[in-house]
C-alpha cells in the first residue's frame, strides 16, 4: 500500500494539513457509531457491495465466456442456433440486474447511515460543547471551534458517504478480479501484479510531491487571504494615507508567490491521472503482446484467444480500483484527522457541578413558614437538603459576600488577590479601575464561570460551591458589554431571559428597560426579525434589548457590565434610565464606565492590579483624595 497521497486532482486539498495522532482508534470510535445505530443497515450495505463487485467482475469474465463458449462454437456450425446465446445473455442480464440493484441499495443505505452518523456526531458535539466551562472558550478561538462544524465534518461526510464504500468495493473488486485472473492464467497474473507494483510506486512518488506542494499552496492562500482581509478591512485608512501603490506592490509579491505554489500543486495533481491511466494502458498492451506471444509459441499451455481477450478486460478492471484506492487513502487520512479533532472536543471535560442546593418557587403557608410550591410566586427559596434527609428552605434575598478570594485564569498567574467584599440585599456595588484591573473577573466568579483558587463566596449565607450551577445562574441576571443577540424576532430575544414569559411580561420588561418605545415604532414591532449582530439596530437599541432580556428574568441579583463605546448623549441617557429601572430593588454589581453610575452606588470598589485599593461611597472616596479622586477629576483613564 502506498503512503497517503494527494491524488484525485479535483478534491485533493488538505483541510487542516495535519495528520491524526491515532487514526486506528479514531476509526474504531467512528465505526462504533455505525455499529450502535445502523448495524443492520450496514450489514446489508456490505452484502450489497460484495454483490455489486461480484457482478462487475462477472461482467468482465463474461467476454471470455461469450467468445469461447458461444461465438467460437457457433462459428464452426453451418447453421448456427442462437437460442443458447440468448439464454446466456438473459442469465447475464439477471446477474447485472442484481449488481444494479445492489449498487442502488447500498448507495441509498449509505446515505442514511452517513447522514445519520453525521447528525449524531454534530448533535453530540454541540450539546457537549454547551457543557464545557467558559475556560474552554477562552483558550480556543471561535474560528477553530467553528472548523469542527464545517471543515472537519465535511471531510468526515466525504469519507463516510464516498471513501469508505468505495474503498470497500474496490478492495472486493481487487480480490475478486485477482482470483478470476489467477484462474484464468497464473503467469499473466504475476505479470499484471508486477505492473501494478510499478504503478503504485510512481503514484506514491507523485502523490508525495503533490501533498507537499498542496500544503505550500494552502499556506500561500492563507497569507494572501489574510493580507486581503486585513488591508481591505482598512482600505479607507489606506486611501486616507495614499498608500495604494505600496499596497499594490506588497500584494503583487504575495499574489505571485501563490501563483507559483498553486501551479506546482495543481501540476502534480493534474498529471497523476494521465500517468496512472497510461501505465494502466501500457500494462494492457504488454499483456496483449506477452499473452499473444505465449499463445502463439505455446510456452504456457491453455492460453486461448478468449483467455487473452478476457484477461485484457480483467487488467482494466484491476487497475481501476487500484488507482481508486490510492486516491481514497488520502481523503480517509484527512477525514480521520478531522474526526480526531471532533472527538477531542467531545472528550473535553465538562463543567463540574457538585452543587445540591437548588432554587425553587416558594410561599409562606398559614403558619408563616416557607414552603415549596409549584405555582409561580414572586418568592424564591434555596432548597437545602441535609445529610439526615431533612430539607430546609431559605428565602433568596441577594446577599453576596466574598471572603479572601484569590483567583487566576491559570494557576501560575493569580490575577485577584485577597478580595473581600460584601453586598447586602438591595445594595449597589460599583467596580472601577483600569482595563485588566480585574473588574470583570470578579463578576465572573459570582456566577461560577470560573472556580476560585482560594477563599470562598457566600450567597445568602450558602457557599456558592454548594449551589447547583444552573440554579445559581438563574438567580443572577447579567447584562454584558457585548450585547450578543440571537437571530430571531425581538420578542424571542427578550424571551431568552425567561422562556415561559408571556407577551405581557415581555412588554413590561421592555418598558422597564425603556426599549418599548423604539420597538413599537418598528414596522413589525415585537415581531421584527433581527440577525445575530443586530445589524439593523443601533448600538444603543441593542443595549436596551439586552437590558430588557435581563429584566424579564427578574432575578434578585444583577451583574451589569456597562458598554464603553461612545454613543451619543441622548441615547446614553435612555440606556442609563433603562439600567436604573433594572437596578431598582435588586442587589447590583456594576462594572462602571460612567461616572454617573459610580456616583450613586452604595459602595465603590476601586481596583488596581487585582486588588481592591479603595472602598467606600462617593463622598468618602472623594474625601480620601486617592485614586478615585484622581479618576473623578479626570487624571486617570477610566477604561
Amino acid at each position, binding site marked *: 500500500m502506498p503512503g497517503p497521497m494527494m491524488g484525485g486532482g479535483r478534491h485533493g486539498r488538505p483541510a487542516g494539513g495535519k495528520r491524526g495522532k491515532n487514526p486506528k482508534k479514531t476509526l474504531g470510535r467512528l465505526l462504533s457509531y455505525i455499529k450502535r445505530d445502523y448495524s443492520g443497515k450496514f450489514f446489508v450495505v456490505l452484502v450489497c457491495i460484495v454483490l455489486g463487485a461480484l457482478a462487475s467482475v462477472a461482467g468482465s469474465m463474461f467476454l471470455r465466456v*461469450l467468445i469461447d463458449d458461444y461465438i467460437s462454437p457457433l462459428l464452426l456450425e453451418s447453421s448456427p442456433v442462437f437460442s443458447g446465446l440468448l439464454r446466456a445473455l438473459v442469465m447475464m442480464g439477471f446477474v447485472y440486474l442484481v449488481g444494479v440493484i445492489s449498487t442502488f441499495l447500498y448507495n441509498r443505505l449509505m446515505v442514511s447511515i452517513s447522514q445519520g452518523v453525521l447528525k449524531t456526531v454534530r448533535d453530540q458535539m454541540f450539546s457537549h460543547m454547551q457543557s464545557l466551562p467558559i475556560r474552554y472558550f477562552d483558550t480556543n478561538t471561535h474560528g477553530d471551534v467553528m472548523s469542527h462544524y464545517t471543515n472537519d465534518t465535511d471531510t468526515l461526510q466525504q469519507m463516510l458517504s464516498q471513501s469508505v464504500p468505495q474503498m470497500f468495493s474496490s478492495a472486493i473488486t481487487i480480490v475478486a478480479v485477482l482470483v478470476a485472473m489467477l484462474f484464468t492464467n497464473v503467469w499473466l497474473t504475476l505479470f499484471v501484479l508486477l505492473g501494478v507494483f510499478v504503478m503504485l510506486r510512481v503514484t506514491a512518488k507523485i502523490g508525495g510531491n503533490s501533498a507537499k506542494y498542496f500544503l505550500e499552496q494552502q499556506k500561500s492562500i492563507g497569507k494572501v487571504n489574510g493580507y486581503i482581509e486585513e488591508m*481591505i478591512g482598512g482600505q479607507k485608512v489606506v486611501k*486616507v494615507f495614499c498608500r495604494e501603490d505600496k499596497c499594490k506592490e506588497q500584494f503583487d509579491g504575495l499574489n505571485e508567490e501563490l501563483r507559483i505554489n498553486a501551479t506546482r500543486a495543481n*501540476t502534480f495533481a493534474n498529471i497523476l491521472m494521465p500517468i496512472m491511466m497510461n501505465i494502466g494502458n501500457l500494462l494492457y498492451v504488454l499483456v496483449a503482446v506477452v499473452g499473444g506471444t505465449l499463445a502463439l509459441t505455446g510456452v504456457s499451455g491453455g492460453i486461448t484467444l478468449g483467455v*487473452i481477450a478476457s484477461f485484457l478486460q480483467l487488467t482494466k478492471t484491476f487497475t481501476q480500483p487500484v488507482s481508486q484506492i490510492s486516491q481514497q487513502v488520502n481523503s480517509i487520512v484527512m477525514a480521520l484527522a478531522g474526526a480526531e479533532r471532533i472527538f477531542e472536543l467531545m472528550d473535553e471535560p465538562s463543567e463540574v457541578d457538585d452543587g445540591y442546593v437548588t432554587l425553587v418557587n416558594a410561599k409562606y403557608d398559614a403558619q408563616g413558614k416557607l414552603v415549596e410550591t409549584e405555582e409561580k410566586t414572586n418568592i424564591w427559596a434555596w432548597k437545602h437538603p441535609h445529610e439526615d434527609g431533612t430539607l430546609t428552605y431559605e428565602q433568596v434575598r441577594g446577599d453576596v459576600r466574598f471572603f479572601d478570594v484569590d483567583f487566576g485564569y491559570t494557576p501560575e498567574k493569580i490575577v485577584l488577590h485577597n478580595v473581600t467584599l460584601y453586598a447586602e440585599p438591595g445594595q449597589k456595588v460599583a467596580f472601577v479601575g483600569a482595563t485588566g484591573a480585574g473588574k470583570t473577573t470578579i463578576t465572573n466568579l459570582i456566577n461560577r464561570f470560573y472556580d476560585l483558587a482560594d477563599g470562598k463566596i457566600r450567597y445568602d449565607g450558602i457557599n456558592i460551591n454548594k449551589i447547583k450551577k444552573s440554579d445559581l445562574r438563574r438567580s443572577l441576571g447579567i447584562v454584558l458589554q*457585548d450585547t450578543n443577540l440571537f437571530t430571531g424576532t425581538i420578542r424571542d430575544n427578550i424571551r431568552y431571559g425567561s422562556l415561559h414569559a408571556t407577551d405581557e411580561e415581555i412588554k413590561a420588561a421592555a418598558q422597564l428597560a425603556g426599549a418599548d418605545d423604539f420597538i413599537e415604532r418598528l414596522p413589525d414591532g415585537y415581531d421584527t426579525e433581527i440577525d445575530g449582530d443586530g445589524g439593523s439596530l443601533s448600538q444603543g437599541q441593542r443595549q436596551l434589548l439586552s437590558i430588557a432580556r435581563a429584566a424579564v428574568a427578574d432575578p434578585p441579583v444583577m451583574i451589569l457590565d456597562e458598554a464603553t463605546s461612545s454613543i451619543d448623549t441622548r441615547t446614553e441617557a435612555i440606556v442609563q434610565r433603562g439600567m436604573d429601572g433594572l437596578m431598582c430593588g435588586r442587589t447590583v454589581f456594576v462594572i462602571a464606565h460612567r461616572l454617573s453610575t459610580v456616583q450613586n452606588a452604595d459602595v465603590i470598589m476601586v481596583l488596581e492590579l487585582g486588588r481592591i485599593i479603595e472602598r467606600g461611597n462617593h463622598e468618602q472616596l472623594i474625601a480620601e483624595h486617592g485614586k478615585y479622586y484622581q479618576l473623578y477629576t479626570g487624571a486617570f*483613564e477610566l477604561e
Partner: protein
Amino acid sequence: MIKQLVGRVREYKKDALLTPFFVVLEVVMEVVIPTVMALLIDRGIDAGNLGAIWKYGLILIVCAMLALVFGALAGTFASRASAGFARNLRHDMYYAVQDFSFSNIDKFSTASIVTRLTTDVTNVQNAFQMCTRIAVRCPVMLIFSLIMAFRINNQVAWVFVGVLPILGIGLGILMKIVAPVFARVFKTYDRMNTVVQENLRGIRVVKAYVREEHETEKFQSVSGRLYREFSKAQKTMACAMPLMQICMYACILLISWFGARLIVGGSMTTGELTSLFSYVMQILISLMMVAMVFVMITMSRASAQRISELLTEQADLHDPENPVTAVKDGSIRFENVSFSYKGDHHKFALHGVNLDIKPGQTVGILGGTGSAKSSLVQLIPRLYDVTEGSVKVGGVDVRAYHLETLRDEVAMVLQKNVLFSGTIKENLRWGNEKATDEELKRVCKLAQADEFISQMPDGYDTHIEQGGTNVSGGQKQRLCIARALLKKPKILILDDSTSAVDTKTDALIRRAFVEEIPETTKLIIAQRVSSVQDADQIIVMDNGCINAVGTHDELLRSNEIYQEVYRSQQKGGEE
C-alpha cells in the same frame, strides 16, 4: 461577462490554448488505443502472426506513451493557465479596489470585497481549469469514441445512439430534481453555522441564563432539517450510478447479441467486439462527466458574476486634467454644500452648508448620532464628492487638486480607525515613509503616546496584532493621531478620535496641538463638550444642517442643543 473575465488570461493565453490542444491529442490517443488493440488481436493473435503482434504492440506502446506525455503536458499547461488566470483576476480586482473611492467601497462593503477576492476567485479558477481540461476532454472523448465505434461496426454502434439519450435524459431529470434541494441544503447549512457562531459568541449569555438545553434544541432542529434535506438530495443522486450501470450493461448485452450474430455472419471479428466493449465505458463515463461539469460550471457562475461586478465598477473619483499640486494654506470654505451618499437629490445627508475656517483655527464639531458630522469633514480631503456646491481648501476647489497632494495636506483620523499588523514604527511610518526615529518620537509625544510606548517591553518596535487588539482603545486612538501628525499636514481632522482617551490626556493632546502646531487648522469632532470648549469656533450639527456656529460661551447662552448636551454631561459629573 464571461468574455470580460476570460480576457484577463493575458500572458497565460498560450498555456490556456495549449491545454485543450494537448487534451484533444491525449483523447485521440486514448481512442485510438482500443482500435489498434483490435488490430493486434485480429491480425496478430487470430492470424497467428507473431510479427504483427509485435508491430501493433509497438504501435500501442508508442500510443500509450504519447497519451501519457500529452496528458501530462495538458495537465501542466492547465495548472499554469488556471493559476495564472487566478493571479491576474486577483491582481486586477485588487488594483481596481485601490482606485475605489469611499463610496465605491461603501457600495460593496468590505466583507463582500474580501469574499470576491478570495472564495469567488478560487471557484472561478477551478471552473476555468475544468473548462480547459475536462469540459474539452469529455465531449471530444464522447464524439471520437462514437466515431470509432461506428468505424468498427456501423451496425452495432447504433446501440450507443439508442442508449445515450436515455442516460442523458435520466441524468438531466435527476439534476433538475436535485438542484433546488441542494440550494435548500446550502441555506440550512448556513443557518446551522450561524447558530453555532452565535452560540460561541454569546456563550456567556447562554450560560448566564442557563439556556444550554434551549440552545441544544435549537441546534438539533437545524441539524435535523439538514439531515432530512441532505439525505433527500443524496438519495436522489444515489440513482445516478445505478442508472449509468443499467445503461452500460444494456449496451454490453445488446452489443454481445448483435456482435455475436455479426461475427458468426462473418462481418465482424472478435477483436472488434473486445474494442467495442472498451468504448462502452469511455462513452458512458464521458457523458456522465459532461453532466457533472455542466453542474459545476453553473455553480461557479454566481462567483464569476460577482467578480465581474467588481471589475466593471467605475471608480467615481478622479484626478482632474491639470491638477493643482500644492496647497497654499489650511483655510477651508464650504459654499452651499449639499451632499448625498447615493448621489441623488432627495436624501441629502448634508444640506446647504456654508462655512469659513481660517488657517490655524481650532474648530470643534458637536451633534447627535446621524447629524452628519462625519459626512461634513469627509468632504474636505475629498473622500466623497459634494453633490451640490463646492468645498475649497486653500482657496481652491478640492476637485482641482491632485488627490495625493490634497490628502497629504489634509490628514484625517477616521472614526473607525485601523492599525495594521506590524511594529509600532511601521504603523506610524504610514504617515511618512522616511520619518526618522526622532520625528516618530516627537509626534508620539504630541499625541501623548510616547509614554505608554516607552513602557512597552519592545518600545517602538512592539508588534501590533492585526486590528490593534493588543493595545487599549485609548492607546490605539493616540497611535492613530500620531500617525496622522507625521504627515505634517496643513489641516488635521479628528473624527471622534479621543473618545476612549481620558479627559486629562485629551486636554493634554489639545494643548500640545495649540502649542506645537499652531499653524495647522484643526477640526475636532467629539461627543464631549470638554473636548471642544476651548475651540475658536464650535459648529453644532443637527440633522444634516449647521444649527449654530460660535464659541463655547456664545453657544451656551444661545443654543438649545448645545445647552442640552452640556447639561447632560455636567450632571454626569465630568469636570
